[in-house]
């Protein structure tokens, strides 16, 4: 599935671009995306550890997604590490 993944907070340290385009085959749910993205990041991002992804939420522009949520049809996702606003 073709995806556009927006990166925020600590994830920005791994990529100069604020969003990345990925083609991760054979996935349709958020849980499957987590596993596939973890493998991709481990292979492409020096210094990446799975803990950051595990502590992060996955969202669209309107809502957080549950593990069993279907991936959005437009393929646009945001990776949200632990938040620290205010």
């Amino acid at each position: 599935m073709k995806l556009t993944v927006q990166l925020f907070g600590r994830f920005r340290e791994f990529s100069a671009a604020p969003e990345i385009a990925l083609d991760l085959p054979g996935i349709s749910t958020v849980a499957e995306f987590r596993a596939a993205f973890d493998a991709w990041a481990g292979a492409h991002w020096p210094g990446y550890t799975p803990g950051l992804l595990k502590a992060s939420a996955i969202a669209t522009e309107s809502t957080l997604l549950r593990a069993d949520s279907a991936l959005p049809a437009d393929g646009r996702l945001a990776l949200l590490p632990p938040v620290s606003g205010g």
Partner: protein
Amino acid sequence: MDTNLQQDALADARIACHVVDIADGRLDPAAAIEFVSDDAHGGIDVFIGRVRASSHGRECVGIHYDMFAPLALTVFRDTAAAAITRFGPKAKCYVAHAKGKLAVGDLAVVIAFGSPHRDEAFRGCREVIEAVKHQAPIWKQEHFIDGHSEWSEGCSLCGHEPADATADGAAVTHSHAHDHHHDEDGHAHHHHG
């Protein structure tokens, strides 16, 4: 309203939510007070979050706020609506958060809550700022005087519950128990509050 403010078009007349890029403008507490003012209101509580000059015992020169603005505005609106539901239908709420590179002394967040009586104003304002801190997709990167920068430890968002699980339809929920660390006011992590 200034064009540099991104106003949430879905907000009702009792709620105003803004994200302000520091490159375009500054947060305006007077505008917050003006918005929540009403002849039916006897109390207005305002919280102003301001970048302070130290963190973890180290001197800071500023904070970079990163934000997922569309979802942040949804969280602002939903939490303001929940607070108004809880503390009175006549209440009004204003939420504005800055993004970009702020210097020491700059305002990071302004919350105003107006209601007929002071208790509801205090409680409504407190509820909304806590939600902004713990539920809104906002991240701060502290810049220290020695040239180092660090992303603040934060609070994991939770997508475990369906979006319609709460009575007010809040898209982001935070109602269940957590075992992670909350970066509460009074801890060294925070720059203001």
